[in-house]
């Protein structure tokens, strides 16, 4: 971990981006004293920032977790240590969860600054977001990311595949970009509602506006994430066991 430079780089990029957003929101609130912004409505752009942050986190710490070691020739060295195959993968998963914790702390720090200006309901919304829908989403990103990392022949391929999966899912599930297309195909739309980013979107809505908690969508997303995680362990054990 001490050699790891990507975590500070991620933290710098994330806090810079959230700092810019926070700056403009505070400046806008000071300018429009007569019509102050709705504190809860402000939590929505923070949610999008945090989702993008999680995708970036997955691209940085999960998708290349095994491939990077493999590309650098370090995987063989790691497997010669007394640590078991599953321990190596578990350590990668733990590092990714640690990165999530760091992202949550940084997200809360920015929200706390915003809360000074707009009220403590903002950090409350962000905290609940990281504890609920964003965590569910991250489990999916972690599971699929590790599986791709294990199965792809290189780290670059894993990242490319991962982004190729995550970005369409993000655009379909968490933005209105495909609303017209999906409206024309209700069956597809129903399926999209169960995709991870749509589930996270619904989860945030349930926190902010009291909509029903999307338990079924959460279950599907968690199931996908945990299933992929388990599969990653099985595939990794078979791959590296066969080589040994």
């Amino acid at each position, binding site marked *: 971990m*001490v*050699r790891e430079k990507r975590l*500070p780089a991620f*933290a*710098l990029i994330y*806090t*810079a981006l*959230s*700092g*810019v*957003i*926070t*700056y403009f*929101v*505070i*400046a806008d*609130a*000071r300018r429009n*004293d*007569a*019509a*102050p*912004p*709705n*504190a*809860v*409505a402000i*939590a*929505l752009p923070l949610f999008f920032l945090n989702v993008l942050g999680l995708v970036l986190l997955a691209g940085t710490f999960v998708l290349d977790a095994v491939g990077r070691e493999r590309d650098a020739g370090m995987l063989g060295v790691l497997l010669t240590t007394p640590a078991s195959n599953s321990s190596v993968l578990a350590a990668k998963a733990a590092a990714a969860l640690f990165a999530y914790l760091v992202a949550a702390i*940084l997200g809360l*720090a*920015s929200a706390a*600054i*915003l809360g*000074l*200006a*707009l*009220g*403590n*309901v*903002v950090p*409350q*919304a962000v905290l*609940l977001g990281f504890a609920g829908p964003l965590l569910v989403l991250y489990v999916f990103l972690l599971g699929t990311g590790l599986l791709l990392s294990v199965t792809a022949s290189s780290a670059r391929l894993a990242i490319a595949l991962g982004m190729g999966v995550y970005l369409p899912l993000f655009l379909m599930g968490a*933005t*209105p*970009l*495909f*609303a*017209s*297309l999906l*409206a*024309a195909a*209700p069956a597809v739309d129903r399926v999209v509602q169960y995709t991870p980013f749509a589930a996270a979107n619904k989860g945030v809505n*349930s*926190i*902010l*506006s*009291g*909509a029903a908690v999307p338990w079924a969508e959460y279950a599907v997303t968690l199931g996908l994430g945990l299933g992929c995680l388990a599969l990653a362990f099985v595939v990794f054990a078979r791959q590296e066991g066969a080589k040994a």
Partner: protein
Amino acid sequence: MRLLPLVLLAALAAPALASAQAPSVAPTGGLVDPKTLRTEPYVDFPRSSDDAFHGQRPLVGGSTNEVSFLVGNPTAAPVAARLRVDVFANQPQGGGQQQQPPPALEEDLALPPRSETPVFLNLTPDAAAGGVQVGVDLQGTGPTWSGRANGGNSYAVQPPVSVRFSSPAPLEGLAPVDQLFGGGGGWSGPLAFAPATQPVRFQALAQNLGPAAVSFRLRLASEQGNGQQAPDVSVASLQPGETRAIDLGTIDPSKLDPEMLRNRGTREFPFSIQMPRADDKPGDFAPTAAAFRLVEGRPVDLAPASLAVGFRHAFAADAFAPATATLGRPFHVEVRARNDGSADEASNPVVVTLDPPYNAEYSVQGAREERFVVSLAPGQESRASLDFTPRVAGRWSLVVQWSSADGPNDQATSLFHVDVPTDVAVQVRQDGPARLDLGGGTRAPVSVTALRDMRDATLRLATGSRLSVNGGGDGPQLAVRGLAAQVVQASPDVLPLGDLRAGETRWLNVTVQSRGTGDFNVVPYVEADGFAYTGLPPDSPQPGAAATAQPASALEVVVAARATPAPLAFAPLAVVALAALAFHLARRKVVR
């Protein structure tokens, strides 16, 4: 408050003003509006009755027209005063004024403390009169007040011709528009739609309700934008009882506003038919013509000859619903989408939300959303419908959101409203929105009056954010629960009222505490028999008319942001940068 009977007949023999008779005065009482801050007796011609005419309600010549004014005494002592009313008739063709001897009304009044006494006056102007002015003089005659107060109003006189728009055809059954996406709203008069891309021809129907043939002029005028007018149209010899269709000319929507064709959705522009006098030139002020019926020689249902036209752009959706609905009974909403553009519109999502009063969630009911998908060829219209049973009395909002094929960000929202008559009158004593600092609180006295007997009533408070169309991709924040409903917290949360008799009033102090910024409503409502009863909001004024001072039915709270230096936003970045630097230095030291 005691009654003050006063009836006085005044016969006027002037040629231009046939008579001014049968005034009646009776105090109705009530607290004087504290916002006026008046300390002495006064004479007021309230504009509320003239609002539809922008304060220029016409009198119908040859008919008996009732006009009224208020004599107010804001002091705590009874006041004796002498009231004198003079009526002046403007001669036609700019012939000046003629004072009518004797005064139309001269009477001693005893004004009760803190009262407003309406005075009614019957005027029968000659159809050829240019106008009528009423002057009121109030002179104190007792020991408590010896001052003087004046007031007056002028009235246009129109021939006994009822005028109304016939084309574009006013729509029946369209719920009043609160706000259209492109602009406009708050219009309670008739509304029609027309494409924004081509000139619109306007027509009117004029009916002579008088006993003699009349000739007059009509003028079509836009009341918004650049005030475009069509040339005057002369109507010659309209015979008694005759109804004639009159072509008023065409208006090019793109000339009303240069932004017209670049906009999306529907943009509303009000038009009126004016009735210029013979000596008026184009561009001069002319009174708005009126549509009315004559019942026993009196004009009734007087309404301005006005029409709002919603100019539709490529694709727009509108909700057709009754203006009023009954609590607990279903009403029908029809959503009509139309493609007035030149290209196909495919798979456009249309979302209709029935949003409860004051955009708040109630214990008995919340918002209901319906989604439709609409594909239309140019010139086509589609209709979809839904039935809804309101369980909350008050003003419901019909929120129509749609996206068109122009792109993912081409989203629009229009607001309509449906009033569900309530059995509770709620009054919040509040002079404008309460402005709170973040974390601060406020208290406001609230009165709740039952308008019928109610059993086991409970008073509750709901909070909601102010509903507005932001024009952005996310649309308005509709009635919600969750954190959004907790940004302001109001107490007492629940207050059992027990059985209420009709007319019984309960007072309470509402305390509001803020946890976040924004513009919010705190809504006191009564729950009884499985229904929730809110107070109806004061009616929105017509465009260009003065707002009337009516008590609010909900407490509006604006929570301001705390003054925070914006550069503080980068504090986490600074901390992370320092930590990264320290980390880097430590790594160099440790790893080597």
